[in-house]
Structures are given as structure tokens and as C-alpha cells.
């Protein structure tokens, strides 16, 4: 008897505390997840680099281009704009964040595959490498001054001397 009395509050407390902890957990769970989501989304928004856009020589006739044509241009296969001007492709170094972002998110081709595609064309005599620029400033000045030029840049670095090309 004594034993049972002594046991009772303990098990009751165990039970009680167990229920309350689970209940709390389940109630808090969606809230917690929401908080985590908001927090990470918020921190992404804070730390994420500005998106990269495709830019061209300001007098280029095109305003929009399909992704498949853009892939052919940056794959160094398609060398002419529809109005017959030669395309001049400018890229940044393979390991820059701009190049990686452009390849993965705009072309949707992995940077190492783009490099391999260029290598295969150059070393069989079927194509040439794009011109590599050393800085954002060089990218801007080349695109602004070379007829038929195409390249890419972060949205916060665009100037009036280049035109944004939309992807269809």
C-alpha cells in the first residue's frame, strides 16, 4: 500500500510531464519550422549575391532570346545575331561567382561542362574560346564598346552603356 502510494505521484508526474512535453513539441513544431524557414529565408535574402543577367552591346537588335540559342552562343557554336552581325562572347574566369551563377542558373549548364565543350571544339579545330575578361569593369567596357558583344553581370553593376537581354 505504502509502496503504491509512494509510486503513484511519481508515475503520475512522469505521465504528466511526458504528455506536456510531447504536446508542447507538437504544438511548437509548425511554429518552429516556420520560424526556421523565415529566419533562413531572411538570412538568404540578406546575404545572397545579386542575380546575374545577360548583357549585350547597346545597339544589338535582340531584346529576348531563347535559352537554347543562348546555350549555342555561349557554347561557341552559334556565331551570328539574326541581323547578321557576328557575336562576340565575353566570359569571366571559370571560378568566379558570376560565371558559376550564370552557367548554373541562366544557361543551366555546369561550368565544368561548358569548359569541356569549349576544349573539345578548340582542340579539334571546330571552334574558338570566348574572350575571358579579368574584371567586372573590363566586362562592362568590352560589352559597351564591341558591336555584337554578349556577356553577363550582376544586376547591381549594370550601367546605361549596356543592354539587358531577356531569356524567353
Amino acid at each position, binding site marked *: 500500500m505504502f509502496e503504491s502510494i509512494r509510486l503513484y505521484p511519481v508515475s503520475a508526474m512522469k505521465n504528466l510531464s511526458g504528455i506536456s512535453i510531447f504536446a508542447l513539441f507538437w504544438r511548437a513544431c509548425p511554429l518552429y519550422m516556420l520560424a526556421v524557414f523565415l529566419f533562413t529565408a531572411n538570412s538568404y535574402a540578406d546575404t545572397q549575391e545579386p542575380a546575374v543577367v545577360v548583357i549585350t552591346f547597346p545597339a544589338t537588335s535582340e531584346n529576348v532570346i531563347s535559352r537554347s*540559342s543562348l546555350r549555342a552562343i555561349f557554347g561557341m557554336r*552559334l556565331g551570328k545575331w539574326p541581323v547578321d552581325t557576328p557575336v562576340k562572347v565575353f566570359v569571366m574566369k571559370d571560378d568566379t561567382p558570376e560565371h558559376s551563377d550564370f552557367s548554373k542558373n541562366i544557361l543551366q549548364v555546369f561550368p565544368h561542362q561548358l569548359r569541356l565543350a569549349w576544349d573539345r571544339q578548340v582542340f579539334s*579545330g571546330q571552334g574558338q574560346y570566348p574572350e575571358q575578361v579579368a574584371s567586372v569593369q573590363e566586362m562592362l567596357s568590352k560589352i559597351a564598346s564591341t558591336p555584337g558583344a554578349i556577356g553577363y553581370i550582376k544586376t547591381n553593376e549594370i550601367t546605361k552603356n549596356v543592354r539587358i537581354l531577356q531569356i524567353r
Partner: protein
Amino acid sequence: MCASFKFAKTAAGIFIQGIFLLWTTFAHAENLMGSELQLHGFLTQGVVITSDNNFLGQSNKKASPDFREIGVNGSLRPISDVQLSAGLLSHKAGGTDNGELRLDYGLIDWTVSSNEQGRSGIRLGRVKNAYGLYNKTRDVAFTRPSILLPQSIYFERTRNVTVASDGAELYLDRYSEAGSLFVTFALGQPQIGSEAAKVALVGLIPNGSFESKLMPIFQAIYEGDGGKYRLGFTTLQLDARYNPGVGDVLQAGQMKFTPKIFSAQYNAEHWSLTSEYALRPTSNKNFGPNAPDSTIHGQSYYVQGSYRLASKWEALLRYDVMYADSGDRDGKEFAAATHRPAFTRFSKDWTAGVRFDLTPEFMLRAEYHRVDGTGYLPVQDNPNPSALVQRWDMLMLLASFRF
């Protein structure tokens, strides 16, 4: 010992300086009369050590350095539709190639029409053969998945026949949201007149040479999702005639080779899976009593996975199988008829390799091969068939620099 070390150090120093001089002189594109001239090249040195047999030189239980690839190339675009290109190559590969300088390719590429949906054009001159996924740049280490291309399809011993042809290649590209399609059709004269080509096709003893009709090659490659999926089909027809030498054991026969290659590749961000399957029927006739008329169906395939461990590291695992005659896979019928080892009729090669890119211009590689059968070994390095060993291991090391 000390003197030779000093010499080696000085030589290495001069060599490295020379390379950097070359690099800084040529690596950048030059403007030539308003059109862009690009000059590039590569230098690859390999070392091969085998437990038995010889491959790429005298490699049996010692290090063979007789595997070297040196190339330079230039391209010029006088107008946007036309490119002139030429590549010179020295390819040293044991007894099969002495490394003499050759014109690897030399062509004029004219894009006849192009628009947003595609392009078409023609390449005239010496054009690299579109054969499977890797043949066009088979001698450029940076574009290969491994030190040694899968030998079941990219035979080192018959490379002279398959590497390039003199003639024309028509090309047609289609770019659409559903994917890109690249089709080529070439008609050209293969490089089949050499001693190495003769040895590859009929062995060391006959002393004649081959000549070929114009060889048609057709290839179609479909790339889905920006190159994540690649599917390819290649076929060609080599129709060659044998001109016997003085007192030759063979008569003036004909050989017809009509391979078909099916290629598939999946590329994820950190890994790739590649497989190619080839049917290689060869028919011989009128070679006389020493080589009765025959048609044999060679068969090849490999499955290859590569994984990018980190930005500079890549690992590779491959299983590569070749049967000289799919009707006699274990070579027993061949052995009974010729008294030569059955295991010379197949090879099953497990390969594990690693690649390290020190810089974008400098690459190091190592790979290990465990091979059952000697089907892909060139006879020039292994003239005595009774000295061959069925199960053998191979370690390969490679350093490659490009500019």
C-alpha cells in the same frame, strides 16, 4: 649521382621556363588583320608500369616513359562564318607510334547558314573523325575521362586508322527547348597506308600495305537539358584493299569494317555516368590460303562513373570489355585453330583512377588497371604471343600542361 641530379634540375628549370615563355607568348589570342588568331597547345607525359606484358613501351615490371603527347594548334576567323584551323601533333606510344610530328587536323570550317534554331556547314581538309564521344580530341588529356581511353572502343593499336580523314564533313545543329541535336556526315580518306595501320589490321608478318576507298562516317548526338543527357549513335564503313608485298603470305584481299557505336551519358553536378556499346563486324575475303574468308563480329562496351570529390579532385571507376569475336568470346575456337592463346581474343579491364587539377593549366592523374585478357595489347610491344600473361595489372601516371 649528384651531377646527374644537378643536370636534371637545370633541365627541368629550363623546361619550365620554356613552357612559361611559350604560354605567355601564345596563350592569348592575337589580333591579326582584324580577325582573331588563337594559339593553344598541350604537353602530356605518361609513365606506364605493368606486372606482365608490355603496353605503351617496355613496361613489363619497369616504368616505361614512352607515352607522350605534344600538340600545338592555331585557329583564325577572318569572317564570322569561316574558321581556318590546324593542329600539329607528336604522339609517342611505345612501338605503335614513334612520335614523329604530324598534321593532326587542318581544315576550313564554313558555316553556310545559321539562325537561332540551328546551323549547318561544311569542314574541308583533314578532319578528326566523329567516332563515339571522345575520338575528336582523343589525344588531349584534359578532354579525356581517364589517362587511357576505354580500349574496347578507342583502341590505341588502331588509332592511326580511326583518328582523322582527308575529305569533307557536313554538319547540322538544331537548338530547341527539347534539346540540341548535332549531326555530322563525313566522307574522307582514312590514314591507312602506314606500316602501323597495316600491323594493326593484319599483324607483323605480312609485308604489304592497305589502301582504302572513301570512308563515310555518320554521327548523331542528342543533348538534353543543357548537356545533362547525351545520347549518340555513330557508324562508318571502312572498305580497304590490301596490296601484297614481295613474297607476301597474304594475297590481294579486301577488308570491310562497319562498326556501330551507341553512346549514352548522364552528367550531374558532381558525377557523370557514361556508357558506350559497339558492334564491330569485320569481313575479310580473297587474302588467300593463309587467311580464309571470314566475317567476325567484334563486340565492346564499357560503363564508367566519375565523381568530383572536390573542385580539383575527380575519381573514376570503369569496367571495359572487348571481345574480338562475339561468337567465340573466350577465344577457345581461335586457340584450337591457331595454337595461339585464347586470352588474346578478349580483354576485361577494371580501372580505378584519380585526377588532380593543380591549376586549370596543369593536371596530374593516376590510375590502376586490373585486366583479364590481352585483347587490346598492340603486337608491336608484344611480338611473342607465347610470352603473354592472361591476368595482368597496370599502373599509369600522367602529367599534362596546356596553354
